[in-house]
């Protein structure tokens, strides 16, 4: 564990070398702090104020107000946690499934590998966009966990393929062959010998899965398939449904939550791309 901590510190130090990546990291950190610590400092907007509907930004209303006269900035503070939690959990589960499937497929080889890859291919060839929408409609996705798991089930196949090819190339290294000769067992070789060498690759994959999850969850929310509270996705969908787009004063109730999602995506992308450059430029020529 201390080893892991030291590695993390080293990583953080490396991140500061890349300016774009560091900026992404800072934005991400800020969004996380605002979304998770903010709500305990800022009281939620519980009441509608009919006198303050659609106020443009001013000293009194820094980011304007929405169709119920609620402060946009307060809604922003309270709307991030759910989006980020879903993204993180979905990213984590996607990566986990993909790593396990990809690793075992690469390691078992032969018939098992063929079978697993056929299943992956079939899953890849399905029109996942439509399938995602139809199943999301029929399964009620009640909480963050259900939505995250749902997105992960749809998100793992392409990553599993990539992980598999990574493992296949690692498998030929001497230290792995040595471990195999010592009969250390497949789980030990995968989790103790190979995974540590793939940590940054997996970290980047995790971030990419997170952006994918944010992408999908945005349109599921927009289509009204995820019955959640006032998170950024729900907020901008509501504002859009209220035709805020055509009203210059109302526009901020649309733009503020949209900005939250865009900032989150951009910070993740900036961060992951710089990680890629720092650790392994070779990876970009992968599958």
């Amino acid at each position, binding site marked *: 564990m201390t080893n892991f901590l030291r590695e993390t510190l080293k990583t953080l130090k490396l991140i500061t070398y890349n300016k774009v990546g560091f900026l992404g990291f800072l934005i991400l950190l800020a969004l996380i702090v605002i979304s998770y610590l903010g709500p305990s400092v800022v009281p939620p907007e519980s009441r509608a104020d009919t006198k303050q509907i659609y106020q443009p930004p001013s000293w009194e209303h820094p980011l304007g107000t929405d169709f119920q006269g609620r402060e946009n900035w307060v809604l922003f503070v309270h709307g991030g946690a759910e989006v980020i939690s879903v993204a993180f959990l979905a990213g984590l589960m996607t990566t986990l499934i993909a790593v396990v499937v990809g690793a075992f497929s690469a390691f078992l080889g032969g018939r098992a590998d063929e079978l697993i890859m056929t299943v992956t291919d*079939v899953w890849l060839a399905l029109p996942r966009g439509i399938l995602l929408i139809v199943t999301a409609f029929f399964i009620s996705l009640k909480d963050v966990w259900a939505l995250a798991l749902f997105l992960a089930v749809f998100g793992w196949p392409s990553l599993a393929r990539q992980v598999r090819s990574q493992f296949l190339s690692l498998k030929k290294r001497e230290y792995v062959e040595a471990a195999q000769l010592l009969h250390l067992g497949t789980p030990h070789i995968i989790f103790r010998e190979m995974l540590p060498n793939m940590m940054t690759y997996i970290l980047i994959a995790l971030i990419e899965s997170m952006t994918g999850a944010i992408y999908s969850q945005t349109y599921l929310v927009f289509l009204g398939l995820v019955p959640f509270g006032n998170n950024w996705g729900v907020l901008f969908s509501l504002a859009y449904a209220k035709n805020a787009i055509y009203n210059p004063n109302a526009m901020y109730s649309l733009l503020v939550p949209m900005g939250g999602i865009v900032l989150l*995506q*951009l910070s*993740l992308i900036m961060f992951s791309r710089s990680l890629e450059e720092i650790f392994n430029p070779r990876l970009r020529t992968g599958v």
Partner: protein
Amino acid sequence: MSQRKPLAERILKSYILQTIAKKTFIIWVVVTLSFVIVRGLPGNPVDIMVMNLMDSQGISEEEARTRAASLLRLDLDAPLHEQYLDFLGNLLRGDLGDSYVLARGKAVAEIVFQRLPWTLFSVGTSLLLSFTIGMFLGMLAAYRRGSWFDQLLTNLSAMIGAVPNTLWAIILVLLLGVVWKVVPLNLMRGSVSPGVKAGFSLEFIGDVLKHWFVPGMVYVLTTLGGWMLAMRSSTVSVLGEDYVTVARARGLPDLRIITAYVGRNASLPLVTALAISIGFLLGGSTVIEFIFVYQGVGLLMSQAIAKRDYPVMQGILLVTTITVILSTAIADLLYGWLDPRIRIRGGEES
């Protein structure tokens, strides 16, 4: 040719047969999933459908059940496996059931096929456009790799691609229609102006293209970056190949090396990805068509969701699946044509 393999083995290993078997299997998976979704899930949609029918038309439960059964083309009292076989049989005859809210009594297949051309046109055109531009930019970036141009292009395209399509659609409507007022708002609603007759007239085609422009831009923006990055990395790896160096050493003209040697080989992995992305885009089209009121399958899907028209939802799922499978099959064939190496599969290689 003297030692040919036995016929049975050759058939089993035939590339085309394997492809067909795989595609059929995928279609079967989706068909089964679609049956499970409507009939097998715990939150039984059939019961909800029966309740809706009772509610909206004031009929008895028994009557509502028979009507639901005929709408879904399922005998609800039969054992589940018989229902499944019935369902498969109906599908084989092209019978997807009838719509029960959107266009009452109209065959789902008919409704979906009316809308499908619009989606295929808008998504297909945009996809080809972004594929072409992305390949071009990707090769350019690969040739200039490491330069500021490459840096800018790769970072920018990754960022553009990360913004969800829903947000792009709203941003474009906001910028082009509301703030800058470059595109009239009525061109961002619907797929063709009212009163314009369909046909091979300049007016119709022009109008269709004008309505396609903004939603098309959303598709292009959301996919362009992916193509560019994929083409870039693919080109970079091809550029390191020996045959490119040899071609250079032979003093072949640059243009020939770029098109016949680098371009052709680098674009190979992208062709398969192209087919996969069609499936992804068809899903994304639901949101885009909803925002632009574009009269395609995607809009039909969101209407069916809003009205809880299960047979229509099921029909869209199946028809789009088959469309995607067919387009992947075409891409596979194209792949074989582009890359003669994989045509001789099952032989000496692998």
